[in-house]
């Protein structure tokens, strides 16, 4: 059983601050982490390896520093890691990214057939959820998004059954492998890697592929040229024109504050008063 897991190194968005004057991201000191949603994908691939044996290959496209994220994956128990890195990828949007990753996966397939491709449901920096579906379409394989559970894998028949979080319910699906799965969050818990894997990860000679190694001859398909979307402007959310009307009383007693608030609010928003009365009845 050979699974390829696509991951991304992202800035920890919980720790990002915007410079109040220049409105730019202050990257300094913001740690780079593995996109948290990708860990559910990696753990699921590792569980399948526990059950059926085989190989887990981790792939990321990114700058040289993304190597750290791959080593982390190796320490959890991934067998092989490939960093796809080339200046020519700079500025890639989701369409160009799915092109580069698909080409990489095809290259991997030349050496060893791939049964399953995993991604997280989305990243926490881009939040688009588009790269996984993009890879599936380009590989012309089946796409199973928001998978909450892998129910059964039949390696002989090359079939897989999953539970999928659909709109308004759970779908039980059966499909053929290879297919691409995006894992839902909270469906498993990442293991602690063992000590052997930790040492192996530190020493491992992970592969760094440039665009040629990833099988990309046509530079028109990647980077800015391969990206139909263009960012025309980046800006900070504008503050509301008025700050909140602060409710104060002389004694600042909680009850008096509450009474003052209600009186003000219901005078200024009479419809709201009716709405609340109607609902609370």
């Amino acid at each position, binding site marked *: 059983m050979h699974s390829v897991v696509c991951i*991304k190194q992202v*800035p920890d*968005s919980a720790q*990002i*601050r*915007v410079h109040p004057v220049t409105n730019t991201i202050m990257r300094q000191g913001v740690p780079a982490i593995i996109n948290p949603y990708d860990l559910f994908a990696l753990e699921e691939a590792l569980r399948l390896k526990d059950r059926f044996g085989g190989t887990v290959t981790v792939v990321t496209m990114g700058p040289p520093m993304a190597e750290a994220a791959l080593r982390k994956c190796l320490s959890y128990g991934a067998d092989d890691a490939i960093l796809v890195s080339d200046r020519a990828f*700079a*500025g*890639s*949007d*989701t*369409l160009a*990214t*799915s092109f580069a990753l698909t080409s990489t996966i095809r290259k991997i397939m030349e050496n060893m057939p791939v049964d399953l491709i995993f991604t997280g449901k989305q990243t926490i*920096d*881009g*939040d*688009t*959820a*588009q*790269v*996984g*579906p*993009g890879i*599936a*379409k380009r590989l012309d394989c*089946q*796409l199973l998004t928001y998978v909450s559970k892998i129910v059964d894998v039949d390696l002989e028949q090359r079939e897989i059954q999953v539970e999928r979080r*659909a*709109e308004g*319910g759970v*779908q*039980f*699906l059966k499909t053929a492998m290879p297919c691409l799965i995006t894992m839902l969050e909270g469906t498993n818990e990442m293991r602690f890697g063992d000590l052997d894997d930790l040492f192996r990860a530190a020493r491992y000679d992970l592969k760094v592929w440039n665009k040629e190694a990833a099988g990309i001859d046509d530079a028109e398909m990647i980077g*800015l040229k391969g990206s*139909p*979307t*263009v*960012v*025309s402007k*980046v*800006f900070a*959310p504008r503050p509301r024109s008025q*700050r*909140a*009307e*602060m409710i104060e009383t002389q004694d600042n007693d*909680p*009850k008096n504050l509450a*009474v003052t608030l*209600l009186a*003000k*609010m219901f005078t200024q*928003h009479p419809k*709201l008063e009716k*709405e*609340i009365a109607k*609902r*609370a*009845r």
Partner: protein
Amino acid sequence: MSEQAKKPARKKVELDPRFINYRHVWVFVESERGEVHPVSWELLGEGRKLADALGVQLCGVVMAGPGERGRGICAEAFHYGADQCYLVQDPVLTDYRNEPYTKALTDLVNTYQPEILMLGASTLGRDLAGSVATTLKTGLVADCTELVIDAESRNLASTRPTFGGSLLCTILTQRHRPQMATVRPRVMGMPEADTSRSGQIIEVPFSMLETSIITKVLEFIPDDTRDKPNLPFADIIVSGGRGLKKPENFQLVWDLAQVLGAEVGGSRPVVQAGWIELDRQVGQSGKTVRPKLYIAAGISGAIQHRVGMDGADVIIAINSDPNAPIFDFAHYGIVGNAMTILPALTEVFKSHLAQARKAG
């Protein structure tokens, strides 16, 4: 993905001549088992403005199984602003599956050539949008919060949060068509239904054999929605944050919510700490809400939270820190200890409502 790496585009970029004849604004009307996802109506409201700005038609796209109320959904789409609807009904479209839906929507786009195609950023919409955009090799902007037409170029300018909502960016798809965008539920307001409106239904045949589709639906188990919170569509929400200090204190939020008949929400830290369930998280990584009244207790108002509740009609903020960012966008602010203010609010609302009941 790495939108942030790009330099702003300044040069005027011409549309690829292949797409010169692409016209009209489309909204994918998402339905399952005859139930339309409300985000589709919100999109039609927004699509109406875009179509008017462009001087073109607004079209709904409805896909369903043969026995389902496809024409009924089209009629509703006209009420919410559509001029025309494309209706595709086929047995393979009964349950949502990526392959037949992608094929049906891609075929429609290639045949009728819209310049804009919008979908809801639901689980279904996100699954479908990414697949269709890749198949068509066009640009797709996810989770837009603002959509406007650039009058000169006729391009769609799609604004979306980036970096977890810390910044906003405006994205253009200048050379390709259709320009695709998804919008999360409740980001746009719900338009008024005008039942006097009607329009033209164009039934489009679809021939895909079930035997040619690889993925099979073995079973579908609908959610038990009886006890499920539905924050995006709640009219009143009382939310708590880290300022409540202890999980026990969250009871004060529940108490006020009960008096108001409100839903209970929370910020990311309290959800991560397990004080309330994931379905109640408001913000960039949780739900987008649009209530008539939003009460935030002990929530500082980090941008990640703000992008999820900014659309509330009235926001009351309670926070002990007078410099908390939430006071920059709330309508009413109380500087104080949420643990004493919340019970006071509960009591005062309760007696006010009792009086209102007596009076009226």
